């Protein structure tokens, strides 16, 4: 779901190069030997370590740019009317919708439309667009928001998400179309989209508020930055993959480019674009907690607030409400796209359905009317209250769990840290920078050839320029360990799910939940179990990386041709042989993809890791958001994370293209 640098077109991979693989393996070993020797000799020199409060010229320069903005904002035409105009429009839209649906609309003590009306309208919309099953789902979901005790915050989040997604559609779909039609546009936009997706939002949150004000506009823009890239990328991919013969046929009939786009490419790419919309929505939801830090309305508020008083129960309940919203939105948009497809094929709506729609509409209107009249139908009732007992139960359970296993988990923390993390970190961050620089370039070359080496060179120079080399190496250490853990866990669970339908049905909802629940929710229990250490940061990253990777591997295993499996079974292989000799090798591409996505998700948790003792770049990003003087250093850390992410992603992609497909 969320942090994926979707790049559907595979980079060029050399088919004949794979014969060099064994040679590369030996070279890689050689690099390792040189590295360890170099480390043994030069250890601790030229590591470019800097103190917590130290600032480089680059950091100070970033600070001065921020101050320049701050000074210029009063009295500048651009800031006051262009940016100010944009934020005024967004603010007015969100505030208008909140008055209508969720917040007391002065002088009324309640919103214009009460909860019953809201439930009725949304259920009817779901029925009209996606069918009865979705209508029931929406109905249940909305009622659950109320029963959990977060009616207003939930509807607020829904409003902010929908407005952000709408803006995404307005910008992202044309952008995707443009990228599909122009190579140059792709070349220019791809790195920008990469940066938008990998740059941690903490790093630019404060200056964003400088521009768009404390209010819904900033929340929408923050969300937009993160949620736009998947939509643009997937749209471009969808249009690109429309079969050229169809386009050729249309062209031979004398249709103009614009007509081809409108009547051939867009309709045929429709399904893919809806997938993009889906990803965009999920990404938007995952920004809820971050947006709450700048007063963005919605469910992020109770999550962030609960963290202040370490209230695990309430953080969990409001987090679950976000999960419910994600699931309902995901399933409804999917159903809507399928229905639209069926409807176009059949042409027209059958009479009975039309009657149903009209009747439903009338009922919905009656509900709206009633909800304007009666306070009980306007203000969500306090009973039945599912939230309070659930929160109490979760708190009690976590306390008991912590008491029972904290001895065990702290032992695990210290073993992993001393045996694995400390030596590895000493090797990466304790080597002189020039040695690490060369080692990383050599690895990039051996893994993927010249192109990723060139990209790695640029990224490493950027990291060097941010003045945070040493911190970047510490972050690289935890990233490597976390990614390996993700792959290991995903392989075990994914293979199990792929081979066993029942396991799949049982595990998948848990994976969905872990993908959408804000990490803030499980940080407190993780801290109680593992303490403020790098290991806790790794645990959080693994919790977020495993779901995507596991699903991809499970799907890959299931996709292995049944005939091969049957043939192998007939020749009497054991279950273990089946997995290791048949299923995994044949699902190789899926495993490679899973590792790549797992890696990106791990990287997107670097900042969250900084909140729980992960140190490295993540901590500076957080500190930069909290302290004015450290803003430049935080932004520099954000840039370094982006560079690290792009480097790892590209090297992994080229390596996968070279070795992944046989």
């Amino acid at each position, binding site marked *: 779901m969320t942090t994926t640098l979707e790049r559907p077109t595979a980079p060029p991979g050399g088919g004949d190069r794979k014969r060099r693989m064994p040679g590369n393996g030996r070279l890689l070993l050689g690099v390792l030997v040189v590295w360890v020797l170099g480390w043994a000799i030069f250890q601790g020199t030229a590591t470019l370590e800097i103190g917590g409060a130290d600032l480089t010229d680059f950091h100070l320069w970033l600070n001065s740019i921020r101050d320049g903005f701050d000074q210029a904002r009063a009295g500048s035409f651009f800031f006051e009317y262009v940016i100010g105009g944009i934020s005024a429009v967004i603010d007015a839209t969100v505030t208008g919708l909140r008055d209508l649906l969720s917040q007391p609309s002065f002088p009324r003590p309640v919103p214009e439309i009460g909860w019953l009306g809201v439930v009725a309208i949304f259920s009817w919309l779901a029925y009209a667009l996606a069918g009865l099953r979705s209508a029931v789902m929406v109905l249940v979901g909305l009622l659950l928001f109320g029963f959990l005790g977060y009616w207003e915050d939930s509807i607020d989040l829904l409003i902010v998400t929908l407005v952000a997604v709408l803006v995404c559609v307005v910008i992202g779909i044309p952008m995707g179309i443009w990228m599909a039609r122009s190579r140059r546009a792709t070349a220019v936009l791809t790195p920008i989209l990469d940066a938008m997706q990998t740059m941690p939002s903490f790093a630019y949150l404060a200056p964003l508020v400088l521009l768009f004000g404390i209010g819904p506009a900033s929340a929408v823009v923050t969300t937009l930055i993160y949620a736009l890239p998947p939509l643009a990328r997937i749209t471009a991919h969808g249009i690109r993959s429309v079969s050229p013969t169809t386009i050729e046929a249309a062209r031979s009939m004398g249709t103009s480019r614009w007509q081809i786009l409108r009547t051939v490419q867009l309709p045929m790419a429709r399904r893919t674009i809806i997938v993009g919309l889906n990803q965009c929505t999920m990404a938007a939801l995952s920004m809820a907690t971050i947006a709450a*830090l700048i007063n963005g309305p919605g469910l992020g508020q109770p999550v962030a607030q609960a963290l202040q008083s370490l209230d695990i129960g309430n953080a969990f309940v409001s987090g679950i409400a976000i999960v419910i919203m994600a699931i309902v939105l995901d399933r409804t948009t999917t159903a809507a796209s399928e229905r639209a497809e069926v409807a176009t094929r059949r042409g027209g709506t059958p009479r009975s359905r039309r009657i149903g729609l009209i009747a439903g509409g009338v009922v919905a209107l009656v509900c709206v009317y009633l909800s304007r009249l009666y306070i009980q139908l306007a203000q969500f009732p306090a009973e039945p209250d599912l939230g309070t007992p659930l929160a109490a139960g979760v708190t009690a359970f976590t306390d008991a769990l912590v008491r029972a296993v904290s001895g065990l988990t702290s032992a695990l923390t210290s073993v992993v840290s001393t045996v694995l993390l400390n030596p590895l970190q000493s090797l990466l961050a304790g080597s002189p920078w020039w040695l690490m620089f060369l080692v990383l370039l050599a690895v990039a070359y051996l893994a993927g050839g010249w192109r990723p080496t060139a990209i790695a060179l640029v990224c490493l120079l950027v990291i060097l320029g941010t003045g945070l080399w040493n911190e970047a190496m510490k972050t690289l250490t935890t990233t490597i360990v976390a990614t390996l853990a993700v792959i290991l866990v995903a392989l075990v669970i994914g293979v199990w799910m792929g081979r066993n339908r029942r396991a799949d049905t049982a595990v998948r909802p848990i994976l969905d939940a872990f993908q959408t629940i804000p990490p803030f929710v499980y940080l407190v229990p993780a801290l109680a179990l593992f303490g403020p250490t790098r290991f806790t940061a790794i645990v959080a990253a693994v919790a977020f990386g495993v779901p995507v990777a596991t699903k991809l591997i499970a799907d890959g295993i299931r996709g292995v041709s049944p005939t091969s499996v049957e043939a192998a079974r007939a020749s009497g292989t054991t279950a273990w042989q089946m997995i290791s000799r048949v299923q995994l090798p044949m699902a190789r591409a899926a495993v490679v993809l899973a590792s790549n996505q797992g890696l990106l998700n791990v990287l997107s948790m670097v900042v969250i890791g900084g909140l729980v003792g992960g140190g490295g770049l993540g901590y500076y990003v957080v*500190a930069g958001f*909290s302290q004015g003087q450290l803003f430049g250093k935080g932004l520099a850390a954000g840039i370094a994370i982006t560079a690290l992410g792009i480097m790892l992603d590209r090297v992994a992609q080229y390596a996968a293209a070279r070795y992944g497909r046989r």
Partner: protein
Amino acid sequence: MELRAVRRVALMAVLGLSLAACGGGNIQNAPAPSGGGGQAASCGKLNMAINPWVGYEASAHVVGYVAKSKLGCEVEYKNVKEEVAWQGMGNSEVDVVIENWGHPDLVQKYITDQKTAQDAGVNGNVGVIGWYVPPWMAQQYPDITDWNNLNKYADLFKTTESGGQGQLLDGDPSFVTNDEALVKNLNLNYKVVYAGSEAALIQAFRQAEANKKPLLGYFYEPQWFMSEVPLVKVNLPPYTEGCDADPAKIACDYPKYDLNKIVATKFVEANGPAYKLVKAFKWTNDDQNLVAKSIAEDKMDPDQAAQKWVDANPDKVNAWLQAAQA
């Protein structure tokens, strides 16, 4: 066809059920949100920043509750960090920061240079920053509260994160810490490790006290957690005026902060009752801890917690109100 009919019936049933839930009680009878006081017109709107810690929340909601219920102001709370709050004073998005911890850089930028913000005096709370140990340690090793003995105990504080030295757990990213300089200048065999958030610090101290594990960390008062686990402060060389002038050479304790109120210049110029109330607002650390405890530990809604304290302390509240209505 049949299936569709079934669907339709089901839909009607679902909507019908929701309709059946309808009862009496006209919306006009609903109580108005503001408790009245009859001066709504003259008070206007108060934009109160909520910085992200519970003590701040307590102060802000007490002032907000009094403004709303006694003066009839419309109060809007904005959840933002310190820097963003100061920033927002330029365009009237934020009127009040009710608890400010120093922040000389922001004072310079917004009070001295841009003149968009002003100091509205102390709020009575005294902020203490320093190094703390869990109470069990202070009991077992009474001399640990003197910094001179810290090196003796460094081995106790070793962790997987501190690379052979004792660990000094820092970590609320909101404050500038001098701790790296302090460790160096006091020749302590310790390494500063960044926990990264207040939640991480609190959880670490909580586990340390529960499991009798050694921990030395950066912390501060007033803080609701102190009423759960009364941490004990380690005495560093005492603070003297100017001993922290050069950040690289600091070898003394943190100063005590007389926490103050920051208000937007435009808010001062309007000179309404809300400003006068904020200006008059003053209470003690104990007062704040009481309200903060209601919020953090008794899980009360901040407004209710504020109401509880206001109802129990009419003298203090009336003193502020007299100033506000003067």
